């Protein structure tokens, strides 16, 4: 029985960790900038990266379906398992909902999303200023929620490593570390 994640699962986890970290930082930084040429560029890059994450989440979910994650260590209580499940479910949900809300927000604001300036995504909503603002608020509220959840996720990994001293953290590391 293997207790570690598959290499593609690890690669997707860390690639998305980097992308999402960057997207959150860039998103909150660029939102309040005065209009300028770089601002428009940053928005485009944010949207391109966001669509990439959206696509990667689906790839990751598919991989997770055909390669089930390793089982939890027997030492974990039912409550800890439920908390872990719920947390991961919420993470996936937000990783889908945030880019989707961004895509809808762009449509409502009348700025189509064209992935890397090449692949146009259909505008799911027609231009509507008020709706655009509401979706912007939703997009940033969900992003705050994701930051909180990621913080909990990291704290939990640390708790497993230092306090419970199981291999939950190590099994997601590039090479399974030796105790």
């Amino acid at each position: 029985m293997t207790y570690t994640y598959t290499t593609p699962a690890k690669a997707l986890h860390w690639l998305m960790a980097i992308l999402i970290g960057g997207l959150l930082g860039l998103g909150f930084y660029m939102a309040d900038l005065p209009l300028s040429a770089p601002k428009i560029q940053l928005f485009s890059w944010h949207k391109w990266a966001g669509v990439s994450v959206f696509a990667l989440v689906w790839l990751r979910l598919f991989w997770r379906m055909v390669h089930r994650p390793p089982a939890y260590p027997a030492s974990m209580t039912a409550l800890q398992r439920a908390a872990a499940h719920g947390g991961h479910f919420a993470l996936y949900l937000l990783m889908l909902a945030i880019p989707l809300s961004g895509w809808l927000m762009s449509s409502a604001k009348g700025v189509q999303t064209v992935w890397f300036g090449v692949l146009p995504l259909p505008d799911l909503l027609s231009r509507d200023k008020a709706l655009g603002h509401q979706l912007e608020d939703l997009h940033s509220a969900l992003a705050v929620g994701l930051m909180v959840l990621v913080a909990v996720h990291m704290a939990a990994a640390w708790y497993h490593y230092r306090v419970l001293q199981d291999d939950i953290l190590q099994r997601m590391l590039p090479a399974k570390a030796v105790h």
Partner: protein
Amino acid sequence: MKTKYVLALAVGISMAFGVHAANYQSVQADKSSISFRYKQMGVAMDGKFSKFQSTLQFDTAKPEAARASIEIDLASVDTGSAEGDDEVIGKSWFHTAAFPKALFVLKQFKPTGPDSYEAIGTLSIKGHARELKFPVKYSAQGAKGQLSASFNLARADFAIGEGVWSKFDVIGNEVQVNFQITVLSGK
């Protein structure tokens, strides 16, 4: 047989050109629109101007004698975003404080086919004037007429978007301008 066809053709031509001759003398502003399309990071964006004044003389029987001028209130621009509207009236773009209006004056109008014409005129924006040549489509709609035209201009020709905006990587140089003008026979 042959004469029948010739007759039918003659009737057809006269219907296309002559029968519905109309003499238009004004523009119905609230049924007319001036819009534009530009590219931002490769993404097509739509905008429009909501305020403009115009004069017009257009007799379909004497199209060459047509006269028209359109004066656009540049501050009435809608770029699709509120901060874009604030930006584009500023110094680097239209600089509406010094150049509040864009002016198009028709110089030549000639028929190129049934209900289609070629317009030549001068467009002046921000102290720069350029001659434009573009096709115009006409259609009669009851007592009213509809003129539609579309042409591309290079924003750099009019110094629209200077300084940090003068490169075309973020906002493209080419801007498509679309006119939909409803014309009336009365003043």
